[in-house]
């Protein structure tokens, strides 16, 4: 079973991203489960959502405490929240940012991937100039990072579920798929052990 934790802010489409990914993975043959850590969040407040996938039926119905991977929808969250909490060593951290964070030592036990999803969302006019909706771009980046689900499954899920600008959303996912930088392991000891 694979568990992925998403960190975002209210209004960025974080919960929708987990649902669409659940649908895309389901389409790709997985059993899935996705749900938000529900608070009373409004626009801008930090939110968390989870995605579980497995080849078999998933029984566990608890929050995710030891995710295999983490997705960070907004780089400003890195200051307030320990996004690596419970993250399994060697897991991916996908961050929406225009540059690799300078203090990437804190991610030394993990594999780092970055994508400028904000720029991609603005390019395709998703959301507003002040509040771009980055979820579909992040989905595309995740698909490249994990080498699953297939981009077609994501396109299909977007097509079925997003009534507003579906083509642009699909294109954003594709752009992110192409543009994501898979930095990989940053810490020396893991680099060597993996090397």
């Amino acid at each position, binding site marked *: 079973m694979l568990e992925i934790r998403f960190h975002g802010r209210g209004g960025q489409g974080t919960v929708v991203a*987990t*649902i669409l990914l*659940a*649908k895309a993975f*389901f389409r790709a043959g997985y*059993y*899935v*489960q*996705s*749900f*938000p850590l*529900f608070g*009373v969040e409004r626009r801008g407040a930090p939110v968390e959502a989870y995605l579980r996938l497995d080849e078999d039926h*998933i*029984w*566990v*119905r*608890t*929050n995710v*405490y030891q995710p295999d991977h983490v997705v960070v929808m907004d780089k400003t969250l890195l200051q307030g929240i320990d996004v690596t909490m419970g993250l399994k060593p060697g897991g991916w951290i996908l961050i929406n940012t225009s540059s690799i964070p300078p203090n990437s030592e804190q991610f030394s036990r993990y594999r780092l991937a970055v994508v400028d999803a904000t720029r991609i969302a603005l390019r395709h006019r998703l959301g507003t100039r002040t509040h771009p909706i980055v979820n579909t771009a992040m989905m595309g980046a995740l698909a490249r990072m994990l080498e699953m689900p297939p981009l077609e499954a994501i396109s299909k899920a977007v097509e079925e579920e997003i009534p507003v600008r579906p083509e642009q959303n699909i294109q954003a996912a594709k752009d992110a798929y192409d543009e994501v930088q898979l930095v990989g392991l940053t810490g020396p000891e893991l680099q060597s052990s993996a090397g």
Partner: protein
Amino acid sequence: MKQVLEGSHAVAEAVRLARVNVISAYPITPQTHIVERLSDFCADGRLDARFLRVESEHSALAALIGASSTGVRTFTATSSQGLALMHELLHWASGARLPIVMAEVNRALAPGWNIWTDQTDSLAQRDTGWMQLYCETGQEVLDTTLQAYWLAETVNLPVMVILDAFFLSHTYEPVDIPSQEQVNGFLPDYQPRFQLDTRNPCAFNQLAPPNVYMEMRHNIQQAMDQVLSRFGQMEDGFGVVFGRRYGEVEPLQCDDAQIILVTSGTITSTSRALQQQLRADGERVGLLKIKLFRPFPADAVRRILGGAQKVAVIDRNCSFGAGGIFAQEVRAALCNLSARPLVFSYIAGLGGRDVTLDVLKLIYRHTKDCEHCPDDSIWMGLHEVHHAT
């Protein structure tokens, strides 16, 4: 067709497939997604029903009591404070023998404000004459809603279909949405045994003096008793069409079990994972899921638990001054057996606190290690609190 569906939307799909005629509800988190989806169905014509907007949950149920009296299929959904506000009319609906179906999303009662899951809201209504069915998965929620109409209309009593807030109501997972033909094959059109009809005027629910009131109440009890036998009949019919059955209770490897965990709702799911692990470790542990709480399936509970050494009932609820409510019912069911297991009562996960595999392991370990079974409930994982002075 299998789809990744939210638990709330699974309820809405079932209501659509049940061809409900009148819906009335008042929004409250975490129930709102159910009626939002239903209002979409009414608006886009996928469901030909009247959606009555009202100013409170009390009015929502009042509206349905009126609608149901005319002999049509009705639905409402609520949660927590909303259900509490309905209390008066819950009695009315059952006393009037109206087959109303309600989705009840378990949410904690305030204060302090808490929107997360907790069964005390629905269990506090256990004496209102409504059937109560607790669900574990999105699929079960959809199926149980369809079954609820069958049961309600068969015995003329209302039903609550109960699901955990967020862990079920807001969780997306694969759910098979049946076709309308399949559903029609299981759930025929509603044929009311009485109804308001201008061609045959009559008055309902007027004065019932002491010389008849008691008989009317006895009648409700008799109807509730019938549910236990009808449940199997209903599931047979359901199984023919859908190939699934749940049982009013579901025992998992209980026959040879020394310790049996008793659960309801989504705690059951995680408990299944634990039970598998423990069995793999060689522990003789069973799991009993209680789906039907009202009427309480005491016979089945006695049969399944009677032979175990210890029973651990996990309650996500509390009747203050008495403890876990499922535990009370289980103990009451077992009390007249000459040889009976020790029944441990655990309270866990109130107000949405996560009941993780670790918590469940702790419960199992405690039950196994403890020689003397305490009468009181054991509260799991309490934090240290600084009391207000």
